[in-house]
């Protein structure tokens, strides 16, 4: 095959180009902004080019692999590779991060550091999605935490230090379990640590040990995804972060948890996964209802959207727990779809906050008169989020429903119950999303703000929101865009489960 290190370049380009920001001449923020946007766009184009020309879709194996020995004395390799599971999240990362840098143009304070951190995060995310070595995965996983912490603690809202501390404690706490799991798996059964994901996938462990590993990884990913009851960092973080950070958080970071669950828990530990999957499904169903019920109680706009994210993550958990082709495909589709929808909703919430400077929903009202374009986009994306047909969210949820229905593992009654509970979530979602819309836009209440003239969306914001909207509709109309990426890989993963 080709020996050009595409992936290394893709992973390292943003962070190296980002560090050059500090050497740029002091000519104001404009240069830095343009530079960052150009780098992100270049990265996105490079990724797309690589995937178009050097990646075979119908091959379930890992492609574009690179394998360099990095640290000799404990066999640490720089191992990268792409398969059908990771290509979707990587493209999503490129897309969302590019748009987030575009959305972050109003940030003027310390813009060098800000943009550097955005690019560093870019590297960390792509790195963790494309690493084929467990330890490298862990390092990339940690690498992307630091930028988030800094972004949160420096450019956040009023309670930013509290939220940032909470975020870093939660995720670092999760990372300990991840590290334990990584080392445990790596050191099991041989003198030399084996951290290669390919070899690990074929290894089998004693059941008890496998369960312990599974629990360790599950805690790490449950913090990230999040799974209740480890979710409380998310509303705080999202409530305080700048909206470009929120886009990254909601769009990509949460998906890393789901990705990790599939990549490590499902692929490496199939026995434990089939033991745990009923519990995952139950927790997922509870989470859908729980978060959907918590959301209407939120007065803060961003927290309400954050809880809706938590609720939607429940669908992913159910899809992962269903152990069916359909369910897992649905989970992947939901990952991608919620990446777009969540990012777009936070973007809109942030931009409307910039205009009205009000956080609490009950203080708002009547914004539709002044901000018709924001109103339009907000309505469309809320509809997308409440799974309106024709948009990607609906298809993802529908496929997940089928995943549960066709699952061979479970009996009829549990399946009926789970489906029923998921469907109740479908009733609750419009309640909080539409009442959010109503409180923000409907009515004629004028604001307490002295000058009640607001600028509607400018070209940049319109561009960002429309370019997120287009893939949502495209996937909703023709889901094979995403499904064709992952179908073969999903089948390969699930083939492990039929040998038992």
């Amino acid at each position, binding site marked *: 095959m080709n020996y050009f290190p595409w992936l290394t370049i893709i992973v390292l380009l943003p962070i190296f180009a980002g560090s050059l920001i500090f050497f740029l001449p002091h000519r104001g923020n404009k240069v830095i902004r343009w530079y960052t946007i150009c780098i992100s766009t270049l990265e996105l184009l490079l990724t797309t080019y690589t995937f178009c020309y050097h990646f075979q879709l119908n091959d379930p194996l890992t492609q574009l692999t690179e394998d360099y020995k990095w640290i000799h004395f404990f066999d640490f390799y720089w191992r990268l590779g792409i398969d059908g599971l990771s290509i979707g999240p990587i493209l999503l990362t490129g897309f969302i991060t590019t748009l987030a840098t575009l959305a972050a143009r109003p940030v003027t304070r310390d813009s060098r550091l800000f943009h550097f951190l955005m690019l560093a995060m870019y590297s960390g995310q792509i790195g963790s999605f494309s690493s084929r070595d467990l330890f490298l995965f862990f390092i990339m996983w940690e690498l992307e935490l630091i930028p988030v912490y800094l972004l949160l603690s420096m450019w956040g809202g009023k309670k930013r230090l509290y939220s940032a501390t909470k975020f870093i404690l939660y995720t670092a706490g999760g990372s300990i379990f991840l590290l334990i799991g990584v080392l445990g798996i790596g050191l099991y059964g041989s003198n030399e640590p084996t951290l290669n994901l390919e070899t690990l996938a074929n290894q089998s462990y004693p059941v008890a040990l496998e369960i312990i590993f599974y629990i360790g990884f599950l805690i790490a990913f449950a913090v990230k995804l999040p799974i209740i009851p480890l979710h409380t960092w998310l509303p705080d973080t999202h409530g305080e972060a700048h909206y470009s950070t929120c886009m990254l958080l909601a769009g990509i970071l949460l998906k890393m948890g789901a990705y990790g669950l599939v990549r490590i828990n499902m692929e490496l530990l199939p026995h434990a996964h089939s033991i745990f999957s009923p519990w995952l499904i139950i927790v997922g169903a509870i989470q859908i209802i729980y978060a959907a019920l918590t959301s209407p109680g939120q007065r803060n706009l961003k927290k309400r959207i954050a809880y809706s994210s938590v609720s939607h993550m429940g669908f992913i958990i159910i899809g992962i727990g269903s152990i069916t082709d359909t369910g897992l495909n649905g989970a992947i589709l939901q990952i991608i779809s919620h990446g777009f929808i969540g990012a777009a909703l936070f973007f809109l919430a942030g931009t409307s906050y910039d205009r009205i400077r009000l956080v609490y929903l009950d203080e708002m009202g009547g914004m539709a008169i002044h901000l018709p374009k924001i109103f339009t986009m907000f309505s469309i994306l809320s509809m997308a989020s409440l799974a309106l047909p*024709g948009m990607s969210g609906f298809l993802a949820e529908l496929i997940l429903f089928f995943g549960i229905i066709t699952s061979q593992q479970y009996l009829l009654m549990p399946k009926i119950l789970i489906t029923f509970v998921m469907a109740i979530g479908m009733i609750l979602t419009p309640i909080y999303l*539409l009442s959010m819309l109503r409180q923000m836009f409907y*009515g004629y209440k004028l604001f307490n703000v002295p000058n009640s003239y607001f600028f509607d969306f400018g070209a940049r914001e319109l561009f960002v929101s429309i370019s997120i909207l287009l893939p949502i509709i495209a996937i909703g109309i023709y889901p094979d865009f995403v499904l064709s990426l992952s179908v073969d890989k999903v089948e390969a993963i699930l083939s492990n489960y039929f040998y038992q």
Partner: protein
Amino acid sequence: MEYTYQYSWIIPFIPLPVPMLIGVGLLLFPTATKNLRRMWAFLSIFLLSIVMILSVYLSIQEINRSFIYQYVWSWTINNDFSLEFGHLIDPLTSIMLILITTVGILVLFYSDNYMSHDQGYLRFFAYMSFFNTSMLGLVTSSNLIQIYIFWELVGMCSYLLIGFWFTRPSAATACQKAFVTNRVGDFGLLLGILGLYWITGSFEFRDLFQILNNLIYNNEVPFLFLTLCAFLLFAGAVAKSAQFPLHVWLPDAMEGPTPISALIHAATMVAAGIFLVARLLPLFIIIPYIMNFISLIGIITVLLGATLALAQKDIKRGLAYSTMSQLGYMMLALGMGSYRAAFFHLITHAYSKALLFLGSGSIIHSMEAIVGYSPDKSQNMVLMGGLKKHVPITKTAFLVGTLSLCGIPPLACFWSKDEILNDSWLYSPIFAIIACSTAGLTAFYMFRIYLLTFEGHFNVHFQNYSGQKSSSYYSISLWGKEVPKTIKNKNNFHLLSLLTMNNNERASFFSNKTYQIDGNGKKRIRPFLTITHFVTKNTFSYPHESDNTMLFSMVILVLFTFFVGVVGIPFAFNQEGIHLDILSKLLNPSINLLHPNSNNSVDWYEFVTNAIFSVSIAFFGIFIASFLYKPIYSSLQNLNLLNSFSKRGPNRILGDRIRNVIYDWSYNRGYIDTFYTISLTQGIRGLAELIHFLDRRVIDGITNGFGLTSFFFGEGIKYVGVGRISSYLLLYLLFVLIFLLIYSFFFFNLNFL
């Protein structure tokens, strides 16, 4: 021709360019798009006309050959399951297509004028065309998933259009209510679809029915589960067609512009539930419980809608409850298995009700200029009256619609309603009695609306006739006469005050507060609109007849109301006694599935007796209504009768009491909305608060508590470890002492042993 059928998948997509172009245009090039105003309306009417021509062509084909065309292609390719898209053209579809397109075109035509001064003109047309797209998609879809998709899309269009005037808080709540209520139905629909998929492994209607029949034949179906699925599917139809437990959204949906009420909430979208049940009738018919349940829901809705319509003040709400009642008739007919009668009534009712709504829209449009743009005033029948003189054409059209809905012979609804009533006698006498008496109620409330609106004097200026300016307008009671004030005082409501949520609002109606009719009362309601007519108190201005475009649509609908009955009238028999009307011919392929009773050839004698019976009930209702609501001065001949009634004192009080009970029932919407507000809305709100509290205090509290304790622990350690030797020594000695104590204690203990 095969060719046309092959390309008929394009039908739903023909109107689609309009919303897409308007949407993109409004977002990206607002001014340029807005300058093209009328062009967009023209374009959408033109595209819909193309669909109409196509669908007329298709239905002619259907009449001649009556075959079913289905074409399917795959949508997602997955190994385990594949979703498919397809279109199905059968008689049911072709009827619905014609219905949607004809009413749609007329309503679009009408709304060009109705909405012409609105800022949201383009938005309106975009929504309307999108609604047409989704509705056409709904009726041509060939599998359940596709139905579900378009089902949701029409729900969304309805949401957007109800909330069209988003500055009105009432519209904001109404649209949310409509969407959530419909979502409850969709919840059932989706679960039903999934359950059926689990049983049969298919979404296609025809495969589904076939597989089910085979399974039932072999006794392999979990019957309880199948019943549950059918029930859940029916829940979708219940929500969409505003049947009994989920009807609450329909009257509130009248917050939308009136053309919307005509198109979506009277003629097409609410018929989608009927359409779905009709489509799935082969499934329902094998489960007798479900058929009984459907007819039960139907009859409850019939009665409930009619009683709730009795005392509505708002003209559109009255019509909305009447729609609900009529939809109940259709559901009843479907539950009885008389598929044909249901569809016949669907068609005739659609045209009549569209006519009535457009008529009421015309009235509202002309009232708005005088009383202001608040729906509380412009749609309030109390303020109308005597419009006969001012809007004669609208009056005629409205009268035709009213008569049709009452079931007066030459008009459309007579034929279909009569058919349903006949069938109900064969089904169950109790249902039939209820259905027939409701026909009388229908006549009563429809004529009440008509008389209050068009007869008598124009009530806005009433104070000048009576000479006392301070008197309440509302003392011209809805019951037509001066009602003794004592009955309407608070003591009547003390029991109900807990139940009625809008009591405060209502109390203000009965207090002697007059509405501000002139300009200053309406300034905050719709800030978009410049109010052109400022009325001073001394000059009377009267409503004007609407423009020709609006009248044109109404006149066409009058023609439809007159003649659409023809499709179902069994006017000609051939030798074998098989009726030859168009509808039966269309629905013939599916008619053999039905209840045998509707298959009887119509006996003229029976027909005439039944018709006389139902018409006499309708006339009785009309008589009561005109007795109660006809202004006294114009009906002198009744004076003696009136006097004889008023002489009997105790009876009168009793009558008033009954009246007030009915009035309260109707005004509070049968307390169902209140019940839902208390039980569901408050319940969910309380639950949300509770869970929010749990989340904040317990789950987050644990984390925060953990953080705090570790913080204090760390601080404590810090104080201990300040780095002074003396404190270290002190601690050291302390611990040594403790150790020595313990040691000595044990030591001595051991010694004493």
